[in-house]
């Protein structure tokens, strides 16, 4: 071997592990998960741990006149019973805007809203203590539909009014676009609410470390925001709170905002003991966020050659009584209501409305899920009216490099919608699939 070819070390023995990007390596957490070793929020415990439980509102909209916790507080094994007045800092949280109360203060705004908290030595006692809390409510008229919520005389869900955000998208001249259209399709669409059902319900455990740091282990999508939100409610410096993520049993947007983190922290700091709180399925479904139900009216115009000319739409999103991410979910809808197609003219309004329905927030799809239900049916109806194949109609109108989105943003070379449609076209050919065969089978 010549000097110039001196090999410092041959790598081949070590080489076993090299896998290029694009390889389907086994997940690094797979082993822990198939053997049952992975620790989820409910699997963590600490010596002397107490169990938390939440009293939830049975009313969608009511004034809280009086809360009597005396019986619960006297029960054997109960270490703390907390209501809004026991909160050391601000009784508020919220992922986008802080408009949600941690524990109901003067009024409740949805069924399932937390009103009081209990920490007890076992879950049975905690449940019994929660049942023994007496709350005097004065039911109020509620808002159960966003269209009713925007009326002048509607009951106010939030003091500042029921419209959370009105987003406007204006591109080109939509009226001229409709004048240029040979066909127009106009419809109303309603989409329903969906529960994320992460298989692991929300849960967490908190305790105070020896050095005084409040420590929270929870099933979360973002520990740094959890920590900030906890600090504000507990009136602690942010760097005195530690938030740690456990293995998470599915999130899908549900665990983006705080779930139980503030609640376990309040109980841990009141009792100076570790407190764990894991929602059961029913509690999780009642008190956590969901997919926004929406109502959309839309009209879409095209020329007889099959070119889209204009779209006008309005979306009403039912965000429940607090924003969570409803401010951005519904905003995003306004931009995406036209879908992956080029519209020279576009007018869309989306209005996120407070109601007394279950809270809506981030859920995989984030408004585009609802938008696509609208724009894709519009596209099919237009294609049918024009007598054009639905896939060809999409290809004819889809965004491409150089064309602009509803916001006027010009697409670059990464614009991939045509490639996905072409791929489906190939797929249809490979499998001899055709539209509108009206094929009957017995």
């Amino acid at each position, binding site marked *: 071997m010549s000097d110039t070819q001196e090999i410092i070390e041959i790598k081949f023995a070590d080489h076993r592990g090299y896998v290029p990007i694009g390889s389907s390596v086994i*997940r690094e957490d797979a082993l822990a998960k*198939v053997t049952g070793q992975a*620790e989820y929020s409910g699997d963590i415990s600490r010596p002397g741990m107490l169990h938390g439980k939440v009293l939830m509102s049975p009313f969608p909209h009511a004034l809280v006149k009086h809360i009597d916790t005396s019986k619960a507080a006297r029960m054997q094994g109960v270490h703390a019973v907390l209501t809004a007045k026991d909160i050391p800092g601000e009784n508020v949280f919220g992922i986008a805007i802080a408009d949600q109360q941690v524990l109901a203060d003067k009024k409740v705004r949805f069924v399932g809203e937390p009103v009081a908290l209990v920490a007890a030595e076992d879950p049975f006692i905690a449940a019994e203590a929660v049942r023994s809390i007496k709350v005097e409510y004065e039911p109020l008229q509620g808002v159960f539909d966003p269209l009713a919520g925007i009326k002048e005389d509607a009951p106010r869900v939030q003091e500042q009014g029921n419209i959370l955000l009105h987003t406007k998208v204006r591109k080109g001249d939509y009226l001229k676009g409709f004048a240029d259209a040979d066909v127009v399709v106009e419809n109303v669409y309603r989409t329903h609410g969906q529960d*994320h059902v992460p298989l692991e319900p929300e849960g967490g455990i908190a305790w105070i470390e020896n050095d005084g740091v409040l420590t929270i282990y929870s099933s979360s999508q973002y520990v740094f925001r959890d920590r900030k939100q906890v600090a504000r409610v507990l009136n602690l410096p942010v760097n005195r709170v530690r938030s740690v993520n456990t293995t998470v049993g*599915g999130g899908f947007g549900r665990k983006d905002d705080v779930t139980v983190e503030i609640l376990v922290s309040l109980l841990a700091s009141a009792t100076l003991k570790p407190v764990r709180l894991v929602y059961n*399925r029913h509690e999780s479904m009642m008190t956590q966020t969901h997919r926004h139900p929406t109502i959309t009216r839309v009209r879409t115009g095209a020329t007889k050659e099959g070119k889209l000319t204009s779209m006008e739409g309005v979306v009403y999103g039912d965000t429940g009584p607090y924003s969570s991410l409803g401010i951005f979910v519904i905003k995003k809808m306004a931009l995406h209501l036209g879908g992956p197609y080029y519209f020279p003219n576009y007018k869309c309004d989306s209005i996120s409305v407070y109601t007394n329905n279950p809270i809506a927030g981030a859920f995989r799809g984030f408004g585009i899920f609802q938008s696509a239900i609208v724009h894709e049916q519009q596209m099919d109806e237009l294609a049918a009216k024009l007598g054009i194949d639905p896939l060809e109609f999409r290809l004819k109108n889809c965004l491409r490099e150089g064309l602009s989105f509803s916001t006027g943003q010009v697409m670059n070379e990464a614009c991939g919608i045509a490639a996905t449609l072409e791929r489906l076209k190939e797929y249809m050919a490979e499998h001899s699939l055709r539209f509108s065969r009206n094929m009957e089978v017995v």
Partner: protein
Amino acid sequence: MINNQKDVLMDLVINNKHISIRAGGGRCLLDFLREDLSLMGTKEGCGEGECGSCTVLLDGKAVLSCMTPMERAIGREVTTIEGVGRPGNLHPLQQAMMEEGGVQCGFCTPGMIMSGVELLNRKSNPNRDEIVEGISGNLCRCTGYRKIITAIERAAEKMS
């Protein structure tokens, strides 16, 4: 310690080990496994018999431990995910779940594997319909099930 039910003597075999302890009765088998034996691999996804994440084997038969009174396990044999296979000594189904991508968040995984193991014990070569039937009581919100079904097929091949 839990509730006011009387203590019972829990004398049974768990994961091939005989145990005999006094424990507060009147709870479900799931709580007994998790709270008294710290066998945390068995999960609670609903507590109402709808999701299958609490599946364990009782005398070799898959049962929902959240719906099974703990007393029913006395004198019998319980197998949980901890008894199926450990790192270095995995059950073929655990190995196949890893390789085929049958695991995402993993919360359904222990229950899913227990149902799969029971099926593979019953039938050495289950067809797709039988596999679907075998895990139809186990909910998974992440994977869409297809890779789990493939994993069970692969495990069956390996085991035969």
